[in-house]
């Protein structure tokens, strides 16, 4: 018969508040006595950059010819203070993800792809592997509360240092890596016993607050002889104040990670209920940079958290970011949530398109696992090519949109190139509702 057979009998009503997902989670909690730990970013419906559109060319604004007329995409970070600034060919970077949460093959693939595209990768909460340093032309080294694997030799090998205050998935939370992924190699790098459930500290051990951060940044510069730029990464909590304070503490670049940002493992309540959406965070960070007169100048802004397409990249730049960072999207490009693996996902109790159990280390795609057999499934060279292709598409799409708005360089995109489709997006982005001049809350 037809689709009328699908679903429950018509007289039944499921609850909006206690829907199937909620019921399932309550039952799981009652069964296990522990919170749900999972990977991936926020999954519930949230305001995204989709609620913004570009205006494009018109009688008053003229487009550039695609392919013939240049649209620049390069970004330079730290030119004012560092001896060796970071130079990116494209305004998309690969976000911090640890070896440990990802396989060595995945880290290598990310390095290959990013290098081919002329951009950077970032180490994560676990230290730097030599494979990653070897395969990544530009490598940003994260400096985290846990300090796993932190050492000055790696610090000096890095092209930039990113001091992590928080990340979008869990502003205020530390790293987490469950026992099944703490192999001998991971354990050795992190100085942890094999098989334990690692829960990192959420605060740095030797500084708290921007006044002390300033002194810490000075120390990092001293240890690296002022050669490289220093980034400060925050989850989107109070982006206006956080950005201002990062600038005052001496950062060359601020990375603001919105609530849609992914993680390898943390509590579901953290992912879904802490932090504000990326669309709301970017304008606040930009406002702080403008007030301090460093916007598009001596302090760059990298926006992260749910960046998926060139449209997202271009909109983030139009709102004022200098570049974006991708994490989840990069993994998907490598092969995460591959529909061809659906049978294997289902055998694990999940499904292609819903796979989020990075924490278990059972990833059929070989990306978020330490199991040698699974990890071997990911060919780093192929993976690198896929990532490079994806980055190329992101860049081409960004250029297409920029040219359509008359820009010869993507950093000339501005909020006035945008309109909002919803009242919320207009208020959050500080962009007028389409067809009107109304920006709620900005009267």
């Amino acid at each position: 018969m037809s689709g009328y057979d699908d679903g429950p009998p018509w007289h039944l009503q499921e609850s909006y508040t206690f829907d199937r997902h909620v019921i399932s989670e309550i039952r799981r909690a009652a069964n296990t006595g522990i919170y749900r730990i999972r990977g991936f970013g926020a999954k519930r419906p949230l305001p995204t950059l989709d609620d913004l559109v570009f205006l494009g060319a018109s009688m008053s604004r003229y487009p550039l010819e695609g392919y013939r007329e240049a649209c620049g995409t390069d970004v330079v970070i730290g030119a004012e203070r560092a001896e060796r600034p970071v130079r990116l060919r494209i305004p998309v970077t690969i976000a911090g993800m640890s070896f440990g949460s990802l396989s060595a093959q995945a880290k290598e693939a990310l390095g290959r792809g990013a290098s081919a595209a002329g951009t950077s990768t970032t180490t994560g909460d676990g230290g730097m592997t030599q494979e990653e340093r070897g395969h990544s032309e530009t490598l940003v080294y994260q400096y985290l509360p846990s300090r796993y694997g932190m050492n000055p030799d790696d610090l000096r090998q890095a092209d930039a240092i990113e001091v992590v205050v928080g990340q979008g998935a869990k502003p205020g939370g530390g790293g987490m890596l469950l026992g099944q992924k703490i192999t001998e190699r991971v354990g050795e790098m992190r100085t942890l016993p094999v098989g334990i459930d690692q829960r990192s500290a959420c605060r740095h051990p030797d500084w708290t607050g921007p006044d002390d951060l300033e002194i810490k940044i000075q120390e990092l510069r001293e240890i690296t002889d002022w050669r490289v730029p220093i980034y400060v990464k925050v989850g989107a909590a109070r982006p206006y104040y956080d950005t201002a304070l990062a600038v005052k503490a001496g950062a060359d670049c601020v990375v603001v990670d919105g609530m849609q940002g992914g993680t390898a493992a943390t509590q579901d309540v953290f992912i879904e209920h802490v932090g504000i959406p990326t669309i709301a965070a970017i304008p606040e960070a930009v406002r702080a940079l403008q007030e301090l007169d460093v916007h598009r100048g001596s302090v760059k802004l990298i926006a992260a958290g749910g960046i998926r397409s060139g449209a997202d990249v271009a909109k983030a730049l139009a709102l004022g970011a200098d570049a974006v960072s991708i994490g989840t999207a990069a993994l998907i490009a490598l092969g995460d949530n591959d529909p061809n693996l659906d049978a294997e996902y289902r055998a694990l109790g999940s499904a292609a398109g819903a796979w989020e159990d990075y924490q278990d280390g059972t990833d059929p795609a070989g990306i978020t696992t330490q199991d040698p057999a699974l990890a071997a499934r990911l060919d780093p060279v192929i993976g690198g090519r896929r990532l490079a292709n994806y980055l190329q598409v992101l860049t081409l799409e960004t250029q297409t949109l920029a040219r359509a708005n008359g820009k010869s360089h993507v950093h000339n995109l501005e909020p006035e190139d945008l309109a909002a489709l919803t009242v919320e997006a207009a208020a959050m982005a500080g962009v007028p509702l389409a067809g009107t001049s109304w920006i709620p809350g900005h009267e």
Partner: protein
Amino acid sequence: MCGIAGLFLKNEALRPELGRLTSLMLHEMCGRGPDSAGFAVYGDGSPGTTKVTVLAEHSTPDWSVLTDRLADDLDADVRVRRIRDHAVFETEGDGDRARQWFLDNHPDLDVLSHGEQLEIYKGVGDPDMVALNYGLADRRGTHAIAHTRMATESAVTTNGSHPFATGPDTCLVHNGSLSNHNQLRRFLERHGETFQTENDTEVAAGFMAWRIREGDTLDLALKKALVELDGFYTFAIGIKDGFAILRDPIACKPAVIGETDDWVAMSSEYRALAQLPGVNDSEIWEPEPGQIYTWTLDAAQSGGGC
């Protein structure tokens, strides 16, 4: 966030140097707090006289007219000393009444402090300039507290700068960030406090002012603060004859204390103390969390947590 410096001179011979030494300490704190600064000086007052320090940030009042009007109201002699946009009114008349007169009649002015010994000065901009503008280096006295500010969750304004007065001859500076100040502000507003900023330190000062008004000793008020205030803080509290220091139980914000026979000093960083004479022979230590340390003129000895 912020830098704090506090200096208490045991040795009378050093008292003409109070301002000079405090300004050296404040200079070392500029990095921690580039946005604005303030300081409180004690000493140089006389029993029976009240000083009221007032700030005219957005207006230029006729100070002599003001002085006359206040003198009329108090039915007592009033003298005024002007320093840029600050003015210090002195009277032997009813000091509390003088302060209230300003609050009632001059909403255009900010009353920064009142008391027998205390004067508070504050301003926006580079801390060294603030110290220079209000003549810190030339001040004499028994003790002083200074503060440099890096605003965290509220605006950079003179109002928002520390020290905040909490009662006669009492004031507070803060390094850190409270986490429940908004609900505490609403509670205190219901109990008679008024606030001018969104600043968490103003709430801490309001809490202390409320407790002292309700009859608590400083010590008891601080003990209650430990319970009621949530977040990270190092407080330095100035009182008429000394100062007190308190760190929250987690104690992540720095604090270092140094002591010699001639002085007791406190700061966020040792390099402020390094400016003081005899520092190489001083005893340097870090105060314990959740303990109230007090130094007063008659005791002239450190007091551990009471």
